[in-house]
């Protein structure tokens, strides 16, 4: 029902779900390929699409989830519900949206000659870990924003920082030194996730399973912790949101 509300707001309705990420890719393509003249045609477009589509899932959802409790201030003051419901509903909503975005990604990949293989089955665990990361970050973000609205600014800024450091429009494997690449991949889980998408979809290579598992475990621990904190401080959060 929330999806219906979201879609009916604009003239183009449901189309916006896929138009928006497409336009982002278009913008990056113009800047980095046509103006900065850094890469070669179709391949770079596929490279951008893989990275950006996955990145936008993370960034948009986390920002939306972070603001979700504060945004439904009226409801928080009227009914006692677990506070994690709001970020979770924002995350679920975007999960539906993202599924159409991934469908579009497959179409684009096929158009440029990347066809499904058995390796693509790796997408399932990659998506699962992506989802866990989003839930963890979304819950933590919404908790922080409840405590202090100022965190909204930090989160938006943080997403821009991640956009530049996660290798959306440059290749982590092109940094020149293998050490640097490994360091970035281990420090920034999002960079690893974007790279995993590309390894599977463009190079038919399985991602490092151990690393993927570690990220998934880390995210799960954070989720557990956030759910505990949100239950423990349920009334305190309500007071913070209302006042």
């Amino acid at each position: 029902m929330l999806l219906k509300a979201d879609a009916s707001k604009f003239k183009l309705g449901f189309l916006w779900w896929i138009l928006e990420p497409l336009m982002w890719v278009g913008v990056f393509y113009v800047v980095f390929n046509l103006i900065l003249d850094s890469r070669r045609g179709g391949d770079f477009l596929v490279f951008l699409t893989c990275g950006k589509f996955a990145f936008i899932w993370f960034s948009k959802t986390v920002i939306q989830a972070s603001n979700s409790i504060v945004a439904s201030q009226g409801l928080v003051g009227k009914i006692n519900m677990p506070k994690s419901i709001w970020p979770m509903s924002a995350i679920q909503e975007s999960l539906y949206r993202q599924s159409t975005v991934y469908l579009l990604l497959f179409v684009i990949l096929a158009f440029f000659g990347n066809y499904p293989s058995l390796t693509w089955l790796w997408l399932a665990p990659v998506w699962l870990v992506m989802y866990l990361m989003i839930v963890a970050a979304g819950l933590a973000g919404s908790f922080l924003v409840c405590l202090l609205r100022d965190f909204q600014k930090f989160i938006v800024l943080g997403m821009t920082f991640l956009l530049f450091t996660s290798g959306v429009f440059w290749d982590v494997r092109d940094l020149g030194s293998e050490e640097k690449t490994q360091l970035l991949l281990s420090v920034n889980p999002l960079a690893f996730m974007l790279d995993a998408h590309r390894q599977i979809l463009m190079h038919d290579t399985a991602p490092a399973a151990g690393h993927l598992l570690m990220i998934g475990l880390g995210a799960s621990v954070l989720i557990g912790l956030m759910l505990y904190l949100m239950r423990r401080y349920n009334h305190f959060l309500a007071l913070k949101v209302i006042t």
Partner: protein
Amino acid sequence: MMGEADREVMLELKNVSLDFRSGKGTFDHGVHHVLNDVSFKLYENETLGIIGRNGVGKTTSLRIMADILAPTNGEVITRKGATASLLTLGLGFRPDLNGRDNAMLSAVLQGSSESEAIGFLEEIKDFSDLGDSFEEPVKTYSSGMKARLGFTTALMTHVDILLIDEVLSVGDAQFKAKAEQAMKERICGEQSVVFVSHSDAQVKSLCDRVIWLDKGSIAAEGAPETVIAQYRESIRVQNQANKKRRLAASSSPEV
């Protein structure tokens, strides 16, 4: 009248206080004391009225009873298994959805199952007199239409303790009469109710007992007529005092 001792207590507030901090002040600056050592009981099948001026903690005490907020000090005791819910207009309205979807959403939020809610929908449409507008987005509604939809949806909730915050002043004269009648039927039945209102007439006709809150504390408690009379008297006295002060202030330069 039944002795208060043999009636079952549905909900009890014991020495409840609520403070919150706002602004950047540290220590006691910027700390608001909304409720201060408030204690009262709500008995089974009773309608308890709460009156008082704006900002004395009426809505906050309802929120504490509905378990939305926790008191800073003191405790809230609810009878085991009893559910308390705040009856409010426009619970979770989404302006982009039509009346039907919104009614559905509110009903589910207030604890109905999806199939129950679907059963209510036609009833809600009938009672609210919205007609074809029921299928239009809520953003096209007038404020009166919104209030009707909200009231009707809220009326469908079934809880043990109903907490009502200023809801009877909705819609035009005709709908108001209808709403008041429906409310009365609901309240007079097997239902414990806490009722916040600024309308003396409503409080007198609906409530068994009234509490007057002033500056976060209970100023008086008892039969509706007596407490309302005391409350009105205090407002009159205060107004007179203000008038005198104004007069004194305006005449003082000449002295």
